[in-house]
């Protein structure tokens, strides 16, 4: 009982800390498409980045991108360029900017803006086809930490 309580307190503290350091979508500073500062202050977890990139309900990046290192996860699309070597072509700051909001780097890109939660036309409640009860309840497609996790994986893609 006491341990359980302690861990609840610890958890609450953790969440509190994470929120304090997390940059909200509205406060992200883009400089020519790149974002210098970590969105959370917590280093990204590349293994979770793989999960985010391959999961249809999360980033689903491979729907549009071929990635040789992710070959075991079918199916890879060809709408965007292959991400092989992306860690050579881009700095971590540029990669963070691209994943957070690709349209800052590539104007009018078809790539979704993963760290944005307003300014849409007829935004829906996920894939229900219905309007959300409250538009201000719309959450970003990926969380700040998920973006950091994806970036941690992308930097490993070297030729």
């Amino acid at each position: 009982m006491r341990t359980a309580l302690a861990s609840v307190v610890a958890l609450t503290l953790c969440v509190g800390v994470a929120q304090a350091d997390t940059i909200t979508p509205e406060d992200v500073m883009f400089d020519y498409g790149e974002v210098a500062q970590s969105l959370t202050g917590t280093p990204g977890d590349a293994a979770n980045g793989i999960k985010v990139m391959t999961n249809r309900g999360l980033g689903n990046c491979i729907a549009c991108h071929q990635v040789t290192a992710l070959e075991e996860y079918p199916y890879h699309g060809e709408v965007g360029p292959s991400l092989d070597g992306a860690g050579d072509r881009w700095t971590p700051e540029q990669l963070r900017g691209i994943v957070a909001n690709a349209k800052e780097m590539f104007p009018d890109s078809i790539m979704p803006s993963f760290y944005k939660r307003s300014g849409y036309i007829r935004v829906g409640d996920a894939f229900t086809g219905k309007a959300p009860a409250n538009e201000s309840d719309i959450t970003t497609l990926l969380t700040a930490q998920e973006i950091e996790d994806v970036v941690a994986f992308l930097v490993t893609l070297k030729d």
Partner: protein
Amino acid sequence: MRKAALHVAAGVLTLAAAAPALAGENDPLIINGQIEITTRTAAPAHLDGHLSEIRSGWTFRTDETQVMQMDDFDNPAMIYVDAATDAWNTVEGSADKSCASCHEGPESLAGFRATTPKWNAEAGAVWTQEMYVNNCRTERMGAEAWDWNGQDMRNMTALLASVSRGMPVNVAIDGPAAETWEKGREMYYTRFGQLELSCANCHEDNYDNLIRADHLSQGQINAFPAYRLKDTNLVSVHNRFRGCIRDTRAATFAVGSPEFIALELYVASRGNGLSVEGPSVRN
């Protein structure tokens, strides 16, 4: 036993006969060995600067799916055409009439599918096939309107398409229809939903590319209604639109809404020059 052997032999024969016809994206589609379908042609003038060639969705499908559409005996949509033919001849409503009472055979409406949606002067609006069908039911037959996306209506649109197969799509975009067409065009290029995707993002800028495992087509509707193998039933144009817009994480529009009527006219006009091909088979 002998029967089974025969069956296998027949199967092998059919396969052998069909083998040369197994179609690539450049091969012609000829239905029942006689109806020639234009599946690739020059884009209509209004698409200048957007597309040079227009292609039926058939050219993007696998050999196995393509071949199902080459013979009505293999086309799973044809049972719905048969059901609609029965409905066509069935007297219903307070006026004691069937479709046949006024129109005789369904072939009398050949060409109708090729030119709808179209301006209806009496109504002062652009009308789709569904609206014409329901108008006949309520005003001439004294029968109940069918649900736009119901089985009866989808079957009837399949019958109406089938009698126009091979005719070029030719919807009017000028004159009184121009305003509706313009609305539809604006929608086509609007990036809806949280994924901020327009029809054009996928079907103009990225057709022929794979998105995950899906081979993106030009999103043409010349072949609707389509029998979707995934749904094992006919799918109406508006239901397909509804699904696509929902998949952009948007609040979608309703089947039969003024927005989808405008979008249908615009998308149909992007296929002006392709043949009417419905009911088709798609994955």
